[in-house]
């Protein structure tokens, strides 16, 4: 299972890539595998505020609907609009083309609540 070392993770299987004050967010390879065929993602609008640990959208797979939880708090600066017509990108490239939103983070200190790649790898090996 691919767990890139340069990312941080939530226990709900989102990943966060922090570059300056921008955080790119998606779901992990493990999560897309558990969800199966993804057919729709509901994302917030640009400018919306999100809070760490709170739902910022939903993801619909054929199997079920799941909430997306924000790894960090901040304001949505960009959404991956290509997912609207091609949600399967999340299945095919969860750490790449399947990214979901970028946020301008409001509290870099929240990083301490996220899991390292090593800890996340341990978490999914137990599930």
């Amino acid at each position, binding site marked *: 299972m691919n767990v890139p070392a340069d990312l941080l993770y939530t226990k709900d299987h989102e990943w966060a890539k922090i570059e300056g004050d921008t955080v790119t967010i998606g779901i992990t390879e493990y999560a897309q595998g558990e969800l*199966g*065929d993804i057919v*729709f993602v509901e994302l917030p609008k640009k400018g919306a505020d999100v809070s760490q640990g709170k739902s910022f959208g939903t993801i*619909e797979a*054929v*199997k079920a609907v799941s909430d997306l939880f924000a790894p960090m708090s901040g304001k949505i600066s960009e959404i991956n609009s290509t997912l*609207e017509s091609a949600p399967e990108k999340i299945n095919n490239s969860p750490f790449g083309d399947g990214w979901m939103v970028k946020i301008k983070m409001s509290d870099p200190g929240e990083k301490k609540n996220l899991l390292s790649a090593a800890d996340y790898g341990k978490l999914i090996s137990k599930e």
Partner: protein
Amino acid sequence: MDDPNTKKTALYNDHAALGGKIIPFAGYWMPVQYPTGIMAEHRRVRSTVGIFDVSHMGEFEFHGPEAEKFLNYLTINDVTKLTVGQVQYSAMCYPDGGMVDDLLVYRFADHYLMVVNAANLPKDRDWVLQHLPKQGVEFKDVSDDITLLAIQGPRSLEMLKPIITPDLEPLQYYHFFQGKVAGMDAIISRTGYTGELGYEIYLQRRHSKNLWDQLFAVGKRYDLEPIGLGARDTLRLEMKYCLYGNDIDATTNPLEADLGWITKLNKGDFIGRDAIMKSKAAGLTRKLVGFEVLDRSVPRHGYPIIKDGKAVGVTTSGNHSVMLGKGIGMGYVPTQSSAIGTELELDLRGSHHPIKIVATPFYNPPKN
């Protein structure tokens, strides 16, 4: 928490070996999907052929001189219309018209077989036993002895014909015969839950592994794949086939559920008839309809259906249609808002999405 009483079908190890994701369902460990995933499995059944282990289903035998009369009282369709070798879709109702279960009735030369939903098996058995006459009908629950495999898809006849005797080709929809599959005694039935050309094979549990392997051997050239419960659900939804517990239950009567075609109010007395006749005379207040979603959202069971800002109904099933590429669903709406073409809204976790009532089945398999 895993229930230690959860049963395994005879093919449990085969599902695990194929990479099946196994979940507890209706008291059994059942494969919900295999590594190719629900959408690929769905397309497999619609394009060539797939195989489902549905051994969790329940089977009851009814023997004796009063069996026909009893079943005709217990079920809502007309059992007396069945010829030997014919299958009938039917249901059992409570006295208030609510549904105990939907089911199949098979007529053999000397007895009847009833096939019921796994999730309802104990309840159905109790219900039958509660009404069983003191004499004239012998009841046997043979569920644990029988393996049931469904082979469904446009190539299913081609695949099965060489290993089945007598000739499979003349077998008509909703008919069956007792014959041999790869040399093993079986009941071969042209029935299914997918809308495709397809067959269901009932055989003794001890033959399960042998048949499973032989079917994969002959199925190879048709790209036969195992299909899990996930695709079974998306396939039946595209046909608007009811799923007990979702679309029908003890609170729905068969007329509301659009099952008037199996509700034979003129056949004589049966359990639930008076209540169903009353609801018909009073005028049905709601109807189970099929709808499509007009944006990209995906409906599920239990979402409010909205008209003019007010909740007027509820969805009972829904998902992304693999073949149509859009959200489809079923739900109860007021009769006056049930016409095809009616536009309503769906409340998905607080946000409203437009839907339209459409003709069903949602998907029509090409005629074979």
